[in-house]
């Protein structure tokens, strides 16, 4: 049983997807599968941080959103007028801000303790802030003034969407470096609270800085990644139409299924590559060192391991995986909507995947990603069916309407219950760490 446990569990989850396809629709099943692949990559990222190293990161949402931002910056169409209006000045403003912080950190380290240092720090920070706003604000006004109905932002590079994926990982990695430098020294639950807040700040920036990605006005019509065609173009392609007619499929359904299959192939490749790398890393001396640090920091330190550096390293790696998943998600959806990033969906749900799947085990996280995402999507119709059955005999009225309406909230309840049950009865998850 234990030896066959992993394949059996994966077969069971595959069966869930097959049943969905057979009894509901293949389109739905494939839809869930694409998102499940992305969720698994997120779960892998969290598992690197929590499972290998015991770092409690509740800022998943922020890194995922940064990946999405990368897609906008890399692959949305350039807006030369807006860039000319204030682009260079924006960069100069951001540079001023960064230099101010760097100088302040440098001065803090160099100056002797005392009143002198406090005065210098205050002057540096206040002066830097005023200078930053002085350079930055006019540029923002200029950029946002250009064609605010459709643009109002600096635009992107217009590069292929696929290129944005590694850049998404890079964005998340840079953010993780900055966060790790300041917050990784904190105790586990302080780190959790700090990262939770930082994620909210990242979302707040994306919501309010209209010059960057139009804020809550959203960016739409981002290009699809390279091999994925558009459904409408497939339906015009005579080769495709002939092939579809040959098999007797409906062109509309077939084109949407083909697009999803290509996405699944693409995401599957990325996931497979990541699993391979994580498995190799976990088996290597480096992986053993990480687990040794996780299990006993003091003794690992006594063996001469640099715990702080290793923590920073794994924090950056895990966050990069999250950024990659975020970029994949945004380039598939073709739009960036900052308001859709909510912590329950993007942070805590990923945590449920990792805990349920089995923290410390890459295959466990992947299984958790598939299973929990399937559940997340399917609980709503199941809840609707259940509540429909319960209320069938009730007279029409406010209570019945309210109950039917609240079926949508079943998913939160289910996720909470699943998490608590797993923590209670199988705390090491479905596929425990070896």
């Amino acid at each position, binding site marked *: 049983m234990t030896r066959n446990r992993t394949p059996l569990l994966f077969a069971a989850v595959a069966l869930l997807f097959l049943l969905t396809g057979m009894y509901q629709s293949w389109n739905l099943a494939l839809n869930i599968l694409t998102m499940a692949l992305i969720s698994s990559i997120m779960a892998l990222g969290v598992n690197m941080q929590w499972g290998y190293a*015991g770092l*409690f990161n509740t800022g998943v949402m922020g890194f995922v959103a940064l990946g999405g931002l990368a897609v906008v910056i890399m692959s949305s169409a350039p807006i030369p007028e807006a860039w000319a209006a204030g682009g260079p000045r924006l960069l100069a403003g951001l540079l001023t801000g960064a230099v101010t912080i760097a100088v302040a950190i440098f001065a803090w380290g160099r100056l002797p303790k005392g009143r002198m240092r406090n005065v210098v720090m205050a002057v540096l920070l206040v002066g830097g*802030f005023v200078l930053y706003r002085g350079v930055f604000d006019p540029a923002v006004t200029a950029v946002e003034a250009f064609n605010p109905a459709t643009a109002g932002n600096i635009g992107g590079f217009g590069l292929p969407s696929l290129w944005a994926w590694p850049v998404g990982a890079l964005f998340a990695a840079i953010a993780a470096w900055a966060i790790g430098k*300041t*917050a990784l020294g*904190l*105790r*586990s*639950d*302080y780190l*959790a*609270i*700090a990262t*939770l*807040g*930082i994620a*909210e*700040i990242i979302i*707040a920036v994306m*919501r*309010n800085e209209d010059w960057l990605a139009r804020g809550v006005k959203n960016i739409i019509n981002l290009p699809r990644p390279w091999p994925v065609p558009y459904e409408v173009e497939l339906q015009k392609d005579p080769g495709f139409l002939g092939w579809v007619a040959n098999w007797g499929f409906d062109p509309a359904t077939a084109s949407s299924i083909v697009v999803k299959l290509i996405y699944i192939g693409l995401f599957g490749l990325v996931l497979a590559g990541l699993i391979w790398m994580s498995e190799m890393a976990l088996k290597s001396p480096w992986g053993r060192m990480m687990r040794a640090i996780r299990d006993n920091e003091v003794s690992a330190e006594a063996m001469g391991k640099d715990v702080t550096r290793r923590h920073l390293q794994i924090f950056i790696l895990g966050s990069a995986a999250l950024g990659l998943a975020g970029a994949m998600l945004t380039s598939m959806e073709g739009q960036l909507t900052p308001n859709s990033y*909510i*912590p*329950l969906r993007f942070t*805590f749900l990923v*945590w*449920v995947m990792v*805990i349920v799947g089995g923290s410390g085990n890459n295959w466990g996280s992947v299984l958790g990603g598939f299973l929990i995402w399937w559940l997340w999507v399917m609980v709503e119709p199941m809840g609707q069916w259940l509540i429909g059955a319960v209320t069938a005999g009730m007279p029409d009225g406010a209570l019945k309407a*309210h109950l039917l*309406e*609240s079926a949508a*909230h*079943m*998913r*939160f*309840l289910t*996720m*909470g*219950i699943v*998490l*608590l049950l797993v*923590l*209670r009865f199988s*705390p090491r998850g479905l596929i425990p760490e070896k």
Partner: protein
Amino acid sequence: MDVLNALVAFLNFVFVPAVAYGAQLALGALGVTLIYSILRFSNFAHGDTMAFGTMATILFTWWFQSMGWHFGPLPTALLALPFGIVVTCALVLGTDRMVYAYYRRTKAPPVILVIVSMGVMFIMNALTRFIIGVGEQNFADGGRFLISAGDFKAATGLAEGLAIKSTQAITVVVALICVGLLFWFLQKTRAGKSMRAYSDNEDLALLSGINPDRVVQITWIIAATLATIAGVLYGLDKSFKPFTYFQLLLPIFAAAIVGGLGSPIGAIVGGFLIAFSEIMVTYAWKKVLGYLVPADLAPEGLVQLMSTDYKLAVSFAILIIVLLFMPTGLFKGKSV
């Protein structure tokens, strides 16, 4: 130069709202800090406990209103508050029996309890959404203003008005009563002393015959009571929306940590510190400065350090700075 008008504008737009908000945060942070010092974990479900308690109170308020019961000039919600507290305490004690007690018995590490509280957060969130939905609810009734801006202007002849909403006044009064009672309880009563002993040193407390289950139960009851009161006050002052309460978790944590987790005084100071900085950094100072400097020097822009949407960023910047330079907070909290 018009110092008096500047002062009134400052009081009206910064001081009064910040005091009310600070009191709400302080009550929430007290609950977080008490749970931390007795049960030794950061309770992620606290924001949703607040939401649940407020929801229970709102339901009783609606019922009382439909029966035609009112509380004179005060909001009916105050009449419903004790009932809301009882329901919330029952839920929280039930959760402890069914969920947390097991992990205390098995002596699970604190970080596991944090993850468990994430699960509880999901469930409480769902319960609130099930029962009252996700929409915004206004349940304040009774008198609107203690002093209205118009009355103040008429009485003093100043150009600026000072408005104090009755909900703001109620917040401060209720918070003062709660804090007074809490400190009296912790300092003077036997149960309160046993709580402090248990928080300082669990082993010694157990050795001296303190019943740990009782201490834990009292802690949950106090935390749920404070959470419900804080939630209802916040809802009366602004409005009730479940998602907002989840987000309140962040400034509440910031307040508790800045003050020092485990220190009740720290939680109160932290609450006001966070509230004042949030409001002062995001307030547009144009009006106040306009009265203070000569007309030709008056600022053109809004003189706003950051846009109001960055409130959260302010509380977290303070949190990070305090953690970096004083890892145990301003009032020497504890660390597990």
